């Protein structure tokens, strides 16, 4: 049985390997050396202190989004509005810093993080409320709100929030001024970009675990997901739970957005006009990380590190082997499909584990 458990845990990894094998074939077709490519992938993600810190930094938004997804999934809602919620969180955080640039760091930094949390919460609450009270399907509303979020972001970055220096010079690059230094996320390792965002994310994961498993409200959310009709019969308010689940999920995405801005290389809010330019598709990849981690807040921690490693390593692969970035995007897609598909084997394995466990407890058998 132990063997089965190990196999179960390694399944997502096996899926990734499977996808990478196809990637190797694609590399061959393109005339690139797959061995060189994959050793670049490993080197880029784990091969040095810098690589490890890059991986961890990449994992932070994935972890936060993923943990949020575990809440939403438990309540049986799909949150594909992560991209927009990240953007809103980034905007609220940036706005706060721009409004109160002279606050001391110990006050400004938490304030900015809370603002990010609030911004994402808002952007999760809207589809939540629309679903609960107007029966607007959350897939529709989150897709639309993603679009809306981008335009609002562009409006602010090209207008009121544009760096005054840019306006003065006439270059008008859509970015904010260098945000107040007190709000820089403190680094965990010197000379890397690894900041306390990692700590925040891990703490968030633990808190969510406690919330879902040890607190009444969290239990109710899980119950709603498990059997909405029974919960309704027992008098629990399904609608409010849905709103809460989406709000919390969005809030965590928003927090990720704030961390992305204040932990960024540039210490500004800047993008190319799209959401992805800022988020790096964390809003979607985080969902995969959650699945990779078995939809469990704690499991999402190693899952997002591994997925982050994959993303960082793949970029390194592109640079070393010089294939078009398009290949990396396609590879990302393959990994997602493979990991998500491997879940069935995992479920079957889990069932077999359960079966053998119950047999072990009751060797006499019998009905």
């Amino acid at each position: 049985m132990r063997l089965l458990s190990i196999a179960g845990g390694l399944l997502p990894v096996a899926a990734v390997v499977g996808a990478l094998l196809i990637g190797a074939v694609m590399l061959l077709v393109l005339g690139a050396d797959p061995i060189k490519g994959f050793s670049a992938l490993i080197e880029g993600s784990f091969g040095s202190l810098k690589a490890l810190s890059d991986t961890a930094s990449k994992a932070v938004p994935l972890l936060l989004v993923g943990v949020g997804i575990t809440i939403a999934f438990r309540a049986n809602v799909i949150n594909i509005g992560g991209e927009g919620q990240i953007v809103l969180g980034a905007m609220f955080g940036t706005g706060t810093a721009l409004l109160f640039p002279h606050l001391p760091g110990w006050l400004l930094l938490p304030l900015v993080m809370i603002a990010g949390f609030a911004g994402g919460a808002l952007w999760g609450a809207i589809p939540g409320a629309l679903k609960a009270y107007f029966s607007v399907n959350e897939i529709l509303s989150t897709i639309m709100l993603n679009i809306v979020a981008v335009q609002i972001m562009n409006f602010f970055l090209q207008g009121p929030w544009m760096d005054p220096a840019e306006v003065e010079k006439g270059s008008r690059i859509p970015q904010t001024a260098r945000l107040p230094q007190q709000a820089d996320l403190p680094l965990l390792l010197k000379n890397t970009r690894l900041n306390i965002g990692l700590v925040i994310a891990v703490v968030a994961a633990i808190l969510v675990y406690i919330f879902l498993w040890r607190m009444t409200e969290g239990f109710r959310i899980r119950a709603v997901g498990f059997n909405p009709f029974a919960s309704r019969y027992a008098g629990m308010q399904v609608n409010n739970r849905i709103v809460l689940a989406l709000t919390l999920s969005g809030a965590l995405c928003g927090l990720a957005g704030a961390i992305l801005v204040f932990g960024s290389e540039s210490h500004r809010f800047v993008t190319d006009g799209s959401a992805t330019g800022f988020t790096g598709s964390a809003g979607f990849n985080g969902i995969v990380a959650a699945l990779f981690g078995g939809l469990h807040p704690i499991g999402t921690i190693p899952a997002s590190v591994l997925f982050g490693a994959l993303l960082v390593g793949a970029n390194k692969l592109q640079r070393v082997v010089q294939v078009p970035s398009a290949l990396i995007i396609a590879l990302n897609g393959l990994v997602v499909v493979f990991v998500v598909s491997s879940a069935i084997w995992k479920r079957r394995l889990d069932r077999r584990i359960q079966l053998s466990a119950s047999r072990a407890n009751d060797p006499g058998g019998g009905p």
Partner: protein
Amino acid sequence: MKRLSVILVLVFALVAAACASGTSSTTTTASTATTEGTTQAAAEPFKIAMIAPSAINDLAFTQSMYDALLAIQTEMGGESAVQIDYTDNAFVVDDAAAAVRDYADQGYDLVIAHGSQYGSSLQEIAPDYPNTSFAWGTAGDTFGLSNVFAYEAASEEGGYVEGVMAAALSKSGVLGVIGPIEVGDAKRYVDGFVAGATAQNPAIDIKVNYTGSFSDVALAAAAATTEIGQGADVLTGSAQMVTGAVGVAQQDGVLWFGTQADQAQLAPDIVVASQVYEWQVVVDQIISLIKGGTLGGQSFVIDLANGGETIAYNPGYSLSEDTKALAEKTIAGIIDGSIEPPRPAASS
């Protein structure tokens, strides 16, 4: 169970990393030339890395720089003399910043961050690599750093010339412009175009439409249709999504003026001319400076005067001699300063 799998995976990863790091140089902050070598038989090629936000075949912004680098490579003796590596479609700013860092780490001589959104990250990265030269465009700011070059295009100049031509060629007196977002290079071009057209014909009506996206081709096509519906018989636009607008122009027999790259191939019948960015004029200078020991601190502009911008007439379109003469006269006027296209305003 989960813990065990995590441990297993981490062990696997560490083992793999140990193997991997044995084969390539570990990285630190300062950049050094790669220590492959032993005795230098052949000279090391000059290594250039380019990071750009769209595809290298976008027939616009990114392609203009990539083509320039290829031209330089040929001019300087091929792949043994100049090595060009690139990361395209780097629209995620954070990933692009990581790429810039990595190329610098790997000892590239020149790292080109071809996108104005990369500047703020570059400002933080460049000081960590004093021996690497960085170039940033399109922009004019070198952040006061001695290893950062900046380059930009005075696209308002070619825009002005094309605006003059467009106004001269328009029979309906209505022109149409399809832009992405009103920032940077696109804004300069459009402002120049509008000024040139108005100078040629003060009664000209110019419909300007910023669609809000650099990549939405369908939206650009719809914008073009809208403008044609309002009487525009000459169109222009900037950014890679204009291919949609060109397609509409081709269908409706409306003329097109292009910028950033030669767009004649998109519609051989109706493209009149394109303002082509010849970045090699600037990159040449940068490479010479680097070889001479200067790693940055200067900014460059390509314009009509230094040949960095050229107006490429489409041979497939029969341009009247009068219009061509008018264009040449305008170009000469801009070069000698008698005509002043609108420069990016430092606003008060």
